[in-house]
């Protein structure tokens, strides 16, 4: 007879090794399960350990959400929102400005661009490259700076007029520390979405000596790129363009036609 | 195009919620003997399925046919 929702188990039936789900477990099955269940538990734990320990290095970068960071400097809009300030050693430091989430295009600083301001936000930092994450509403993160504060003019010099590099297009926000890892096939969709939303793209390359180079990516005229390069994001590409140093950042100016998938 | 598809899916699910709730309150006991008098938790358990598969249940409910047929052709009274 079947029992419904009963914890009272009838006595075992004549066939000692025939398992009936609603009845007491026969001894042959009990012995097997007493070995199998602990074995499966060990396999579960072992697999968890093995799979997690073999994951790639997530990459450098940090997203310091527990505190806010304040910078005073010149606000710029082109090619991407950024602020040029003075660091502790007295050098000019360029910090990219991004809004929360994956949308930066709504960051409206047209009115304030060109002036000296104080900006407060969450710091994203990767190997000396800085980014400040700020709220959408300008009034919430921008405030006037001391009147006598000044920043030296930006120096622009051409590093290479025509160079071909192999590397990858990354979105700066995730790559700099919000997502770790922030690169590869599994991150491609997110990177593409970020760049679509206006997050500045960067070009990540390795020199012959194995040194990592991260450059801000624009089109051949130095204007922002976004939709034109979406299919190429997070893929191994070869790009041909011009490298320009603007202050402490390198800019890679590539026409969207001059990319080649590897 | 994607937005249109999403809208269609949304409307389908919304219709599913409305029809499922109506079915759970009014139709289920007549349609399946074993569901007569079954508790609230049971009805909640089958609610997700009703939301996604509501056309099938609605069809049978409206046709008035007794569902829950024996697979070999007999009925289950």
């Amino acid at each position, binding site marked *: *007879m079947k029992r419904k929702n009963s914890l009272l188990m009838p006595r075992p039936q*004549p066939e000692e090794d*025939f*398992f*009936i*789900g*609603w*009845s007491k*477990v026969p001894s042959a099955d009990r012995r097997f399960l007493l070995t199998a*269940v602990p074995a*499966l*538990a060990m396999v579960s*734990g072992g*697999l*968890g*350990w093995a*799979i*997690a*320990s*073999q*994951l*790639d290095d*997530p*990459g450098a970068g940090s*997203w310091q959400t527990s505190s806010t960071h304040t910078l005073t400097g010149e606000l710029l809009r082109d090619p991407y929102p950024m602020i040029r300030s003075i660091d502790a050693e007295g050098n000019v430091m360029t910090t990219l400005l991004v809004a*929360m989430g*994956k*949308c930066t*295009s709504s960051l409206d600083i047209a009115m304030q661009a060109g002036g000296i301001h104080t900006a407060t936000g969450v710091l994203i930092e990767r190997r000396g490259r800085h980014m400040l994450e700020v709220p959408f509403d300008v009034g919430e993160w921008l405030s006037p700076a001391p009147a006598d504060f000044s920043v030296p003019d930006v120096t622009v010099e051409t590093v290479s007029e025509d160079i071909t590099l192999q590397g990858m297009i990354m979105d700066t926000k995730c790559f700099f520390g919000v*997502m*770790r*890892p922030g690169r590869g*096939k*599994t*991150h*491609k*969709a997110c990177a593409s*979405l*970020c760049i679509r939303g206006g997050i500045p793209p960067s070009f990540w390359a390795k020199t012959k000596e194995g040194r990592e180079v991260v450059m801000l990516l624009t089109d051949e005229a130095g204007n922002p790129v976004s939709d034109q390069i979406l*299919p*190429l994001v997070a893929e191994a590409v070869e790009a041909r363009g011009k490298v320009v140093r603007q202050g402490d950042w390198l800019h890679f100016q590539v026409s969207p036609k001059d990319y080649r*998938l590897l | 195009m*994607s937005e249109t598809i*999403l809208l269609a899916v949304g409307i389908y699910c919304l219709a599913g919620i409305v029809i499922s709730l109506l079915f759970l309150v009014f139709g289920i006991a007549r*349609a399946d*003997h*074993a569901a007569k008098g*079954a508790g609230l938790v*049971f009805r909640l*358990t*089958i609610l997700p399925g009703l*939301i*996604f*598969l509501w056309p099938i249940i609605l069809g*049978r409910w409206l046709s008035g046919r007794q*569902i829950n047929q*024996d*697979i*070999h052709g007999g009925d*289950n009274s």
Partner: protein
Amino acid sequence: MGHQYQAIQWNRNKAHYDIAIALFALLYTGIFVVIGLQPSETGNTPDPVVLLIRAFGTCAFLLLTFILMIGPLARLSDRFKPMLYNRRHFGVFTFLLAAVHFGLALMWYHGFGPLNPFVSLFVSNQPGGTFPGFPFEVLGLAAFVIMLLMAVTSHDFWLNNLSAPVWKALHMLVYVAYGLLVIHIAAGALLTEKSMLYPALVLVAFLLVAGLHLMTGLQERGHDRLRRALEDKGWVSVSAPQDIPDKRAIIVPLRDGERVAVFRDGNKVSAVTNVCRHQNGPLGEGRVVDGCITCPWHGWQYRMEDGVSPPPFTEKIATYNLKLMNGMIFLDPVANAPGAKVDPVFFDLTEYDESGDAEAV
């Protein structure tokens, strides 16, 4: 139906089972997260959300692999029947883990952006033009939809109201889901992570599932071919009655694909359809307990003489007519209506010694 639906049916065995799989999942994801959060050699730590996405995704895939192994394993050895018993709960649980993976990935990778996350899921991974650029996320979504439909219909209400063949066809889509998941992993994670452990694990998982199914498929075909059906006026020969193991059955495949279970209980022989009314379990692999045919999957029972479940249950299965001729049981391949009473065939046990050989008369 003989009894009222309940939301979730539990008994002690099912409770133990559910605790065990929850324990396996907890051990896996817990150790995964603890190990994964450790800084790398260069001092970098992953962000916790990505780690959780990977923990739940891999856990769900590994559990699904094991679920798919249970079916064939239970055919190869009776010791795995207990694992088969509560596979429904196992499946729904695995779906819930997959749902966490999907929800987190959708939110983290596709949320907070300029597009609706579901739109982004389809358009953000634009292929670079080569096969490795295949949008793996969409494959994961397709597998998830299949598993969602399976999870929401994991109740006897749906088994009865979709009709068993439709329900079964829907749940066989699990194999399609598994194939989609293998490609989802291959085109995503395997192209991102460098360790050879991952492709090796996916390959082993796939080979285990495919290999076990192939083994049991060949075994079943072998069993069927052994039945050389001698015919007498359309009746199919089964075997000598004493050769049917006591309290067990011989399964006879008919030409039309149906299978009949011919049971012996002491000196009586009866025949019923091999298909259990509950979830199509193989009755012929069950036993006779208290005079009732008992299904090996969930213990549903039917009286030998008429295929009706003992009171208070009222399920009925089809019975078949038998005759004993020249020491051989013959089966009429035309089924009777479910619940039709058929007198069992009696034979004289005392004619045979324990080895089943006829004594010299």
